[in-house]
């Protein structure tokens, strides 16, 4: 991890010996002493939180795999056995299941932080893109893992999602059969999902390595988006940000623990505590909460193929974001107009999630009834259409044009000046 000159001096004969052969302590020391902008706020703690999430998922996952049976006749029961009979299984299984939700919660905050402070702009495009790859892999891993308990939602969620691939022109049906390993979601599907669910977290870990490498090569962004200009603008990562991250991690773990101990099933679906039944679709199939906005985009268009294309485009557009935003100013603190569009975007993402949860024909609000007695007003289908339009509009219309026409506020000369300047104002 390059980026700043190494200041590590081995103190003992043994560490000198090691340093000449494998400078691993030096690497750790340089990592801990990494000069970080002195104005990072708590929104910057989510990198550390996400690392913790990944470690938690891998450790609990490896343990669960020791007790789980990836076979359609035994999977459902083996998960129930973990929760009831395996020592501390009642703790470890919910840690893994709730952990997935917490992982996504943290990654969404991390991504919105990057969007707000312009962390995707040059020279950090690759950090952002690697992050998008990690996010995509997380979604894949989450989906594969959700299949494993072999409940009703597991089965039907997998049926619907693999059905997407059946919509590909010409090769769709054979592609779908290839993915499933048969005509429908069956034992072959469950076993490959288990195998890949075990593999992907390690791929994620590898890409996290690249993500952090790139981050340490160009340095962190910060809330004002002005690069550090002198030593005064930075602080050593340890102890300043290790301590700050520790505070944030403590708070995060409180929320995590609250769900694990008091609401272990609140984020799941009751239907998934019924064994998978290929003859009966649950009345209302909904994905896990972290996929809901994309599910709403999928359902916003009446055409099957177009819906899928739009859903994947919603993620693909993130990859090209560094070239869509034309503004030279990184932080939205200094972009008075863009800031409002960002806040609307944030609300739209929540609305999309709400649309994904509700049935498209349900009413958001109704204003009386028509002659036939049907309620009139805005239904979730139209709300999801409006919000889908804004989601894409934000990236492909608003950000490109706004960068050219908006007049940003004056940027501070340096991080130090912005930090001390605000102090002086507060004292006065």
């Amino acid at each position, binding site marked *: 991890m390059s980026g700043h000159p190494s200041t590590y001096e081995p103190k003992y004969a043994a560490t000198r010996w090691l340093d000449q052969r494998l400078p691993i302590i030096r690497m750790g020391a340089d990592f801990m002493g990494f000069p970080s902008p002195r104005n990072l706020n708590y929104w910057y703690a989510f990198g550390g939180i996400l690392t913790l999430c990944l470690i938690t998922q891998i450790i609990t996952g490896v343990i669960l795999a020791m007790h789980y049976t990836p076979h359609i006749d035994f999977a459902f029961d083996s998960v129930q056995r973990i929760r009831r009979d395996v020592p501390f299984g009642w703790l470890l299984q919910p840690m893994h299941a709730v952990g997935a939700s917490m992982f996504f919660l943290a990654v969404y905050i991390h991504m919105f932080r990057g969007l707000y402070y312009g962390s995707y702009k040059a020279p950090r495009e690759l950090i952002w893109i690697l992050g998008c790859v990690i996010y995509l892999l997380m979604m894949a891993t989450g989906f594969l893992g959700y299949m494993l308990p072999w409940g009703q939602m597991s089965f*039907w969620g997998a*049926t*619907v*999602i*693999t*059905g*997407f691939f*059946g*919509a590909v022109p010409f090769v769709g049906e054979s592609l779908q*059969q*290839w*993915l*499933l*390993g*048969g*005509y*429908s*979601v*069956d034992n*072959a599907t469950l076993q*490959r999902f288990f195998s890949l669910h075990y593999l992907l977290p390690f791929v994620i870990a590898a890409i996290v390595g690249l993500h952090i490498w790139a981050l340490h090569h160009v340095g962190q962004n910060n809330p004002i988006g002005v690069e550090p200009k002198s030593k005064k603008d930075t602080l050593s990562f340890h102890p300043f940000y290790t301590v700050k991250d520790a505070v944030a991690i403590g708070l995060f773990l409180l929320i995590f623990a609250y769900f694990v101990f008091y609401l272990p099933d609140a984020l799941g679906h009751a239907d998934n505590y019924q064994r998978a039944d*290929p*003859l*009966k*679709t*649950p*009345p*209302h*199939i909904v994905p896990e909460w972290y996929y809901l906005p994309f599910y709403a985009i999928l*359902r916003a268009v*009446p*055409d*099957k*193929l177009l*819906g899928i294309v739009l859903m994947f485009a919603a993620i693909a557009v993130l990859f090209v974001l560094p070239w869509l935003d034309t503004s030279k100013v990184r932080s939205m603190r200094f972009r008075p107009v863009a800031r409002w569009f960002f806040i609307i975007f944030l609300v739209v993402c929540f609305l999309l999630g709400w649309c994904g949860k509700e*049935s*498209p*024909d349900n009413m958001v609000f109704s204003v009386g009834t028509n002659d036939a007695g049907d309620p009139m007003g805005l239904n979730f289908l139209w709300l999801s259409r409006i919000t889908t339009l804004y989601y894409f509009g934000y990236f492909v219309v608003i950000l490109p044009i706004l960068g050219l026409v908006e007049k940003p506020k004056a940027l501070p000369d340096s991080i130090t000046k912005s930090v001390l300047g605000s102090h002086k104002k507060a004292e006065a």
Partner: protein
Amino acid sequence: MSETITNDDHETVDEGKRDFIYIATGAVAAAGAASLAWPLVKQMGAAADTLAAGSIEIDLTKVEVGQQLKVLWRGKPVFVRHRTAKEIKDAVDTDIAKCPDPQTDDERLVANPEGKLNPAFLVMVGVCTHFGCVPVGEAGDYDGWYCPCHGSHYDTSGRIRKGPAPTNMVIPPYEYLTDTSIKVG
């Protein structure tokens, strides 16, 4: 390419010969990798026993008028619907020009050994052509089937009439063994 040069150690190097060796070695390695990739890809397809999961026979006498039998065939439900007179009439009287996937009711039936169609029994794969959910019977705007997942409406012939599904519900390959029993698959 193919020129002879002399390196620092005054050895003569035939560049053309070296290029040939590089390309030939690379080509062999690439062909080897590709031939190994195929089994790695192909293993994910349906296995022989899955493909061989043959056919099932269904006794139609057990299905009363207005009833629907659901049987599992190749991991998917097959609907055997004993349609009421009204359902058949609705299916036949439909103006198929209005259907997104136009098919007459007769086209969705299979003839018995005497070459006659039996409109009383509709046999189809009970899987919504949108994303593969199992539609609910006697429901929807056309009193046929309604898919709870994304709101596709099918009529009493299993034809898509409204909603996101692109095509009618699939008719599986089946034949009448006698007037009252069929073999699916």
